[in-house]
């Protein structure tokens, strides 16, 4: 049971960490000062959530395990984030769409986790929900501004929607771990809010004057450790210091 719970905590934490890492790449490179600050602030919130999950996982893992070993010293196949969050920044449109889809998913997932039978997960979720809602407000407002903006911004954000939305399906695939967590009352049945997720996404796309892509969902398996080619590069950067100077601290 502890082993499965640890994996579940990694799954929850890895999503926030890999997305937080992608956003941190923009530190000092945002398209404007305000968006730069916003994206790095969001990254910081996500890393705060990661720490909460990994500290919990470390307590379950015994003496040799710490939040840092969980974050930095695992092999690629044991990271359990969805493939969506690995997708590169490409342009501001991709950054916003990726964020919007993640925030929208979290706006359903986090309240569900607040009802978790695991008190610690429920507390982390209760702490995160306010942040999630604020992030969603930011990403939604940019979806609308870019969609209803210039020809250039509209074309770019539509391209990002076409590319990234098919990845969102993975959020709702119940892996063995998630099924077990559902049976234990720790995690939700993801199917219960799939429809609401897509109808909310559609609502925003309509308001943003964008169209829903017709392409079929992508079949990806990040949650079981099978990642896209981007993941290796991310981990290379993320793990370099800890692997070169083991147990270093800033």
């Amino acid at each position, binding site marked *: 049971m502890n082993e499965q719970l640890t994996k579940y905590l990694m799954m929850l934490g890895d999503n926030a960490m890999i997305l937080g890492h992608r956003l941190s790449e923009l530190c000092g490179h945002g398209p404007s*000062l*305000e968006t730069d*600050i*916003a994206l790095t*602030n*969001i990254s*910081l*919130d*996500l*890393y*705060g*959530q990661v*720490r*909460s999950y990994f500290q919990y996982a470390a307590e379950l893992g015994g003496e040799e395990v710490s939040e840092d070993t969980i974050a930095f010293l695992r092999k690629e196949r044991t990271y359990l984030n969805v493939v969506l969050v690995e997708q590169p920044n490409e342009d501001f449109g991709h950054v916003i769409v990726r964020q919007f889809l993640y925030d929208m998913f979290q706006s359903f997932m986090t309240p569900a986790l607040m009802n978790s039978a695991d*008190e610690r997960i*429920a*507390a*982390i979720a*209760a*702490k*995160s929900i*306010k*942040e999630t809602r*604020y992030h969603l*407000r*930011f990403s939604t407002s940019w979806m609308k501004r870019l969609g209803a903006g210039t020809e250039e911004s509209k074309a770019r954000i539509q391209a990002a929607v076409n590319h990234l939305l098919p990845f969102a399906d993975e959020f709702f695939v119940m892996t063995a771990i998630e099924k077990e967590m559902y049976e234990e009352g720790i995690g939700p049945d993801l199917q219960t809010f799939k429809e609401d997720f897509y109808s909310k996404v559609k609502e925003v796309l309509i308001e943003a004057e964008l169209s829903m892509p017709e392409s079929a969902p992508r079949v990806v398996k990040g949650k079981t450790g099978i990642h896209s080619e981007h993941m290796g590069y991310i981990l290379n950067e993320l793990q370099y210091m800890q692997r070169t100077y083991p147990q270093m601290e800033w």
Partner: protein
Amino acid sequence: MTVLDLGVVRAVREENKKVFVELTPTYSGCPAMDTMAADIDIAMQKAGYATEIKLVLSPAWSTDWISQEGRRKLEEYGVAAPLSDSLDKRALIDGERLIACTNCKSTNTKMISQFGSTACKALFQCEDCLEPFDYFKCLK
């Protein structure tokens, strides 16, 4: 401004010259958390106490926990104190001009950025005296 004014110290108790402190973060990723814990530890040591500091998440911190004194000190420092939940929404989402400039007190102010210098703040500017200032967002 103290950690007590800010409402991040949740509980303190002493047993045989050892002080147990429960701290709570404003935002999950608040980078000041470790510094606050270290500062408390040092202050306690100086006063001759050992400390054990524990981070607690539940119930989640809210801006209601900032004391009246804390709000006054924020304003004095140049950070606008949080409005009530409903007024905060009207200011941040509907763009109503409700937040008073910390420099000249005019409410003819506008939001420059949803996110300010730290996660807990948004960036505003006064349209009368042109002063840019941080607004401590309401968190409930």
